[in-house]
């Protein structure tokens, strides 16, 4: 089947999509957008987190046909050209990136959190990121990065 949808503001069309295919597969293998990572394929790790009509979801659990006519936002859409988003810059500055595999999902999920809640408490950050696994176990630096991004965003840093 053919799927028409918008990715990071650009109209996209994917052809010969198998009906059981996930949005993640379409993004990575058909549209050449490998930022969303493929790891668990069961919604456990959060590495494929994208936004679907503005809501954070695991791309591996969305059927390709379910995005017809809808808007998807991926990690590739966070930066403005070479200019990183506040959250991306905070991850770099805080040293929150180790192997980097979980980073795209965390960036999308953390961006979603800060869009909804400008000054989240630590408990709120932990809960928001509970579905994103980091196998390097770099969680403390990730917490630092989200706190830093929040401070910068609200003008306290």
């Amino acid at each position, binding site marked *: *089947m053919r799927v028409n949808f918008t990715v990071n503001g650009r109209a996209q069309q994917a052809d010969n999509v*198998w*009906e*059981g295919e*996930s949005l993640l597969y379409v993004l990575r293998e058909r549209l050449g957008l490998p930022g969303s990572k493929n790891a668990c*394929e*069961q*919604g*456990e790790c*959060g590495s494929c*987190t994208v936004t679907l009509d503005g*809501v*954070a*979801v*695991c791309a*591996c*659990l*969305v*059927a390709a*046909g*379910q995005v*017809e006519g809808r808007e998807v936002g991926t990690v590739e859409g966070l930066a403005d050209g070479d200019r990183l988003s506040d959250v991306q810059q905070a991850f770099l500055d805080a040293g929150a990136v180790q192997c980097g595999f979980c980073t795209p999902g965390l960036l999308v*999920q953390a961006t979603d959190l800060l869009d909804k809640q400008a000054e989240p408490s630590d408990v709120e950050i932990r*809960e*928001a990121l*509970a*579905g*994103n696994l980091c196998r390097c176990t770099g969680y403390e630096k990730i917490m630092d990065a989200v706190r830093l991004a929040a401070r910068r965003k609200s003008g306290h840093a």
Partner: protein
Amino acid sequence: MDFLRPTSWREALEIRAARPEATVLAGGTDVLVEVNFGHRRPEALLDLTNVTEHQGWSEADGTVRIGAGLPYARLIDELGDRLPGLAMAARTVGSPQIRNRGTLGGNLGSASPAGDGHPALLASDALVEVASVRGTRLLPITEFFTGVKRSALAADELIAAVHLAPASGPQQFAKVGTRNAMVIAVCTFAIALHPEQRRVGTGVGSAAPTPFRATAAEDFLTAELIGTGQWERPRALPELAANRFGELVAAAARPIDDVRGTADYRRHALGVLARRTVHRVWDDHRTRRRQCA
């Protein structure tokens, strides 16, 4: 594989009648896992996400009607005040990403004995509204689950909504798992006080082939509270009564040994959860009464 995309509830029912072999797809948090891993190769997927009629909720005549397609995240945000027990349970589902997508209707459709939403529905005597081109029927939640991942849903039916009364007293939900997020329950327990009926409701998950009500425990506590005049003059719940309640909940379970826990552990844990949550709801009830007085 066919990808069927109705855009209205009526059309969805017609397709369901014509293609009973199709796998119903809502949030995809169960179905896509099975498809991704090749455990399931449906002949057709019937996607309900373009059907908006069943994605909201409404309240009328003392009943909340939750559309089957309402995601958990919205249930928590919008119904947490009316349905605290169900909202507590919904907060333990997966992760934010999963709760943004997963639905109560999908939870019922999967009919897993470990479904997080089920115990709270049992504790509050929910009704499941199921529909087909033949018409609509309301099933008591106790009649909905018929076996492991089996329900009373006919091949041409779709789950339309869940009906339940807004909480009239304190409610609690407790779940045992290895961490707070992303766990399939080892066991779960829900309790609801129904002060206007002077009754206690319970629901138990992941401890038998289907979720169930611990009716002997309900009957014991209901009789105990009435018999000791607790509703007229609420006092602390005696430890003996809380212990007996826990024992009866544990005794009602028919758990199995599996990778998540042993049957013995589940029985023990259920007793603890029941004891703990009955104190929470009763203390909550007593405190609120005192504040009102």
